């Protein structure tokens, strides 16, 4: 222990005497460990940490998979009827509940706002095993009898109610209906665990399923069932257990849906929550791992150089009786001092990066609230620091212990040939650095290319001079079709009269904004090939002059007009993909489709127009069949499935095309809505360009972050090649002096050094290109219209690394060529 203390003192003294080396090593490691720690805290918070519910490993989603229907992209859903059927007829779950995300206009406390909320049945809270911080959750009786009670989030209690102690029993207006606050959930409670921060539920209310949802909503998979598996029950057993319930559900389906084949699906809640984030988080972790590897290799190289420079001192120690273990220990202590200093600084950098950076994380990332520097992350950072120190210090330490005492002492201080034997080791480290830097640079190149490709995708509509915003009419105020129609008519009329406005429309689904609404439909005269699934299309309900406002070109037929009233013959507009797929080579105008499946008794709608394809959810998703109906005809288009009390036109996205920049129209839009309903909140008032940018934020984030790591990796690798070439040139000073004394030109010396740099660069690039071929396959799910083996990207990345390596060799080459031969020989 005493000796360890002496080693530590000596290491600190040595480092104090070489501040530039110590600073370079600590900063390099701090960057590597800091970045790795920050990303690990995301990995830990998002992927590794158990969900914030007791015994969360037993929580699972129970839902459906429909034969022939792609339902990927979220937790397996259920219908309202199935919520009850699964709860009644399955036995694998100790408790089973269900929820549905929704939104409400919140008023009565603070400014009115549109908020996210969840309707949940009373089974959910026992499933999750979380008790409220104050008050209680709702009971089965309150759920069944549609009591207007709500449990609010801690954040809402703090923000809107200023942590009022008498919160319980206070009322809040949701869609202008009064609800009693009966509980406040704990600060960390979040459910459902949706990606990002914007869509979190701020309050929870009883599900109180309506008869309409159960009967007419038989074809609406809008609910999610969550259960707690009984102890010892596996996922496979739970699926098996749900089979009879699914059979029973199919038997009870309305005749119109008789052809549906339902298979129960059970997915662990953790898996369902994090699965989509996994490729990105893995890629990030890999990227920082590469950066850390390069930083570590650089440190190992620097330590090796130090060992070579201290060869004589080490040989004296060995001559005086130091054992190999003593030399290794001393060398490792120095490396550990550097790595732990780097680790502590890295931890501080990671804390800073997380504090600043969490708000920049993409909205596609779930559980962002769990990302923090907890003890596990701190332990990870310190463990990483120690491991890095040991790994980086081991080769130099062993090299030091193997110093040939006799030879080193005989050299009498000469450095001309010292360390020549370790040149291969240092070169190997740099080749490895260049190779992995090339892999990361290639990855970053592929993502940049993907991002560029995505930006140049034709969205099918004009995003310029287009303002959008969402609204939702509260059911209490707009309880009749007349009231809703009056609002919409006033809205369109007033907006159209604003100066500079060219066209105004409303749509249920704003394109390229991630909103999805897929519906089954039946095209007239189309005979599906055997084994084909249902015909599914992205459907949107529109009002006003929507196509003109959005800039979607009409290819054939006509647009909707005012003469297409709610009680007129039903009409529909389809996109080119739908027309060409179902009626190839035919004019779609006059053809008919109806909603649902073949057996559905929904009425036919006549195609009156064909429009161009648009990117329905995002630029990177392939265009599918799309059909647009008039909002005012929607109820009629559902036929017998439409609830009798259904009101159409209760919300959507307003799109306003104007000659003025959209930012200048925003206040006019707000004022117009206020003039019709002063209390109605508008959400997401933004230009269409902003909407598109938000949709691309996740990809931009991936690209920027991985490119930043790629740049850092290249920079570190170039520093590595510089240090190796510079050191080797210094070691060869004597040789260069002799060459020049014998008549060599300075240019030949420059060439000699540059060739050594070029050789390293070539070998690193060759190895890196091979590694990239394998490694970039991991990127496949993050790429868009770019092959992971894109030769252009690999060649450009390799050329970049090679040229930068050559540039890094220029300074040592120039320095070597500038030596005065006689002076160098005399010094030797």
């Amino acid at each position: 222990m005493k000796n360890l203390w002496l080693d530590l003192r000596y290491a600190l003294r040595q480092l104090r005497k070489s501040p530039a080396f110590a600073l370079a090593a600590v900063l390099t490691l701090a960057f590597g460990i800091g970045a790795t720690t920050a990303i690990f805290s995301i990995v830990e918070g998002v992927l590794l940490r158990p969900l914030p519910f007791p015994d969360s490993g037993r929580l699972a989603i129970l839902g459906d998979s429909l034969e022939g229907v792609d339902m990927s992209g979220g937790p397996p859903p259920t219908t309202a009827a199935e919520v009850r059927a699964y709860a009644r007829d399955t036995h694998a779950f100790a408790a089973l509940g269900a929820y549905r995300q929704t939104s409400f206009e919140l008023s009565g406390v603070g400014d009115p706002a549109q908020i996210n909320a969840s309707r949940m049945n009373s089974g959910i809270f026992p499933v999750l095993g979380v008790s409220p911080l104050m008050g209680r959750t709702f009971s089965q009786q309150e759920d069944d009898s549609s009591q207007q009670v709500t449990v609010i989030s801690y954040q809402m209690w703090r923000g809107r109610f200023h942590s009022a102690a008498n919160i319980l029993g206070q009322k809040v207006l949701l869609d202008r209906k009064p609800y009693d606050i009966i509980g406040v959930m704990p600060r960390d409670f979040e459910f459902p665990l949706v990606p990002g921060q914007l869509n979190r539920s701020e309050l929870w209310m009883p599900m109180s399923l309506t008869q309409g949802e159960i009967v007419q909503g038989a074809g609406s998979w809008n609910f999610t069932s969550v259960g707690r598996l009984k102890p010892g029950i596996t996922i496979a057993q739970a699926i098996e257990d749900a089979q009879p319930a699914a059979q029973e559900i199919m038997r009870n389906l309305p005749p119109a849906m008789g052809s549906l084949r339902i298979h129960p699906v059970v997915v662990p809640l953790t898996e369902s929550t994090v699965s989509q984030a996994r490729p990105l988080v893995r890629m990030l972790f890999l990227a920082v791992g590469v950066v850390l590897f390069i930083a570590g290799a650089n440190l190992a190289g620097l330590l090796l150089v130090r060992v070579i420079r201290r060869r004589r001192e080490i040989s004296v120690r060995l001559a005086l009786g130091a054992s190999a273990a003593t030399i290794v220990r001393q060398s490792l202590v120095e490396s550990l001092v550097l790595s732990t200093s780097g680790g502590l600084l890295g931890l501080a950098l990671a804390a800073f990066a997380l504090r600043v950076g969490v708000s920049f994380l993409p909205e596609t990332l779930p559980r962002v609230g769990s990302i923090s520097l907890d003890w596990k992350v701190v332990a990870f950072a310190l463990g990483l620091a120690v491991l890095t120190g040991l790994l980086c210090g081991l080769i130099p330490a062993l090299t030091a212990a193997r110093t040939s005492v006799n030879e080193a002492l005989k050299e009498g201080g000469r450095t001309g040939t010292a360390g020549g034997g370790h040149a291969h080791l240092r070169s190997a480290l740099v080749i490895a650095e260049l190779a992995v830097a090339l892999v990361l640079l290639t990855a970053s190149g592929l993502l940049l290319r993907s991002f560029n490709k995505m930006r140049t995708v034709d969205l099918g509509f004009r995003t310029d001079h287009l303002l959008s915003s969402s609204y939702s009419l509260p059911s209490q105020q707009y309880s009749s079709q007349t009231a809703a129609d009056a609002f919409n008519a006033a809205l369109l009329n007033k907006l159209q009269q604003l100066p500079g406005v060219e066209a105004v429309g409303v749509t249920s689904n704003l394109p390229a904004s991630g909103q999805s609404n897929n519906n089954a439909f039946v095209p007239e005269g189309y005979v599906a090939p055997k084994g084909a699934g249902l015909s599914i299309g992205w459907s949107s309900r529109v009002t006003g002059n929507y196509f003109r406002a959005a800039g979607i070109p009409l290819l054939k037929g006509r647009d909707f007009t005012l003469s297409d009233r709610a009680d007129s013959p039903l009409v529909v507009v389809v996109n080119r993909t739908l027309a060409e797929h179902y009626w190839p080579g035919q004019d779609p105008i006059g053809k008919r489709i109806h909603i649902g499946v073949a057996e559905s008794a929904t009425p036919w709608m006549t195609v009156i127009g064909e429009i161009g394809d648009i990117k329905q959810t995002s630029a990177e998703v392939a265009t599918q069949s799309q059909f647009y109906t008039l909002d005012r005809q929607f109820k009629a288009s559902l036929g017998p499935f439409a609830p009798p009390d259904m009101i159409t036109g209760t919300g959507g996205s307003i799109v306003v095309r104007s000659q003025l920049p959209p930012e200048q129209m925003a206040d006019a839009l707000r004022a117009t809505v206020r003039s019709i309903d002063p209390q109605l909140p508008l959400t997401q008032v933004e230009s269409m360009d902003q909407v598109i940018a938000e949709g691309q934020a996740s990809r931009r984030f991936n690209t920027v972050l991985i490119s930043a790591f790629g740049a850092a990796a290249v920079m570190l690798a170039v520093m590595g090649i510089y240090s190796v070439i510079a050191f080797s040139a210094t070691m060869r000073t004597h040789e260069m002096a002799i060459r020049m004394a014998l008549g060599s030109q300075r240019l030949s010396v420059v060439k000699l050094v540059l060739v050594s740099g070029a050789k390293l660069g070539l070998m690193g690039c060759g190895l890196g290109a091979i590694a990239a071929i394998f490694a970039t396959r991991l990127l496949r799910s993050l790429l868009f219209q770019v092959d992971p083996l894109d030769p252009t990207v690999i060649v450009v990345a390799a050329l970049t690394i090679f040229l930068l390596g050559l540039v890094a060799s220029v300074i040592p080459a120039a320095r070597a060529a500038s030596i005065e031969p006689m002076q160098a020989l005399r010094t030797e």
Partner: protein
Amino acid sequence: MIDKLIDIEDLTKVFYTDEVETHALSGIHLTIARGEYVAMSGPSGCGKSTLLSILGLLDTPTGGKYLLNNKPVENLSFGERSRIRNQEIGFIFQSFNLIGDLTVEENVELPLTYRAGMPSGERKKRVKEALERVNMAHRMRHYPAQLSGGQQQRVAVARALAGSPSILLADEPTGNLDSKNGEAVMHLLADLHREGSTICMVTHDPRFAKHAQREVHLFDGKVVSEDELRKLTEEVEV
């Protein structure tokens, strides 16, 4: 009966460079008694430094026997040789080989820190004694760079003495010193010998060799008598 500290029989050392064999030492027989002061001399390249390296267990012989304190040491492991070097041998190098980042005190303490179990107090005591013996105790807190060449060599001698070794091996200890400092170091070694130390010194300077009790002459890797050495040297010069 002679108390043999070092007993070497038929020692050889061959260096192999590519396909060339260089016989640095050929059939050396040498005995050094405890308390003896031996000087090894000979022309450059005769093998005296190689022999000293083998005597100090810094190198291993290619053949022959080497008994140190009556124990064979020619085939020991690296670790064993380190341990014996630390406890039995004190080195004095031509270029001092002090560690620039350590103070005088720390340099002298260095070999003692490699001895397992020696308490810190004991180490400090020995360092102080050794430095007092070479009259350098007043420079304890100095760094080597702050000392003259002669002072540095005295510190190196103190370092060699601190561990109370069986033998002091000095390789051209005056080679980097001026004549005045060289003489001073020679007197220091003579004093140490008088106080009972065994010393084996390599030197090519006949003036300093005279300080020793016995002179061993080497030529082309063999031990020769003084007359033989003179004759061989003359032949080479002719």
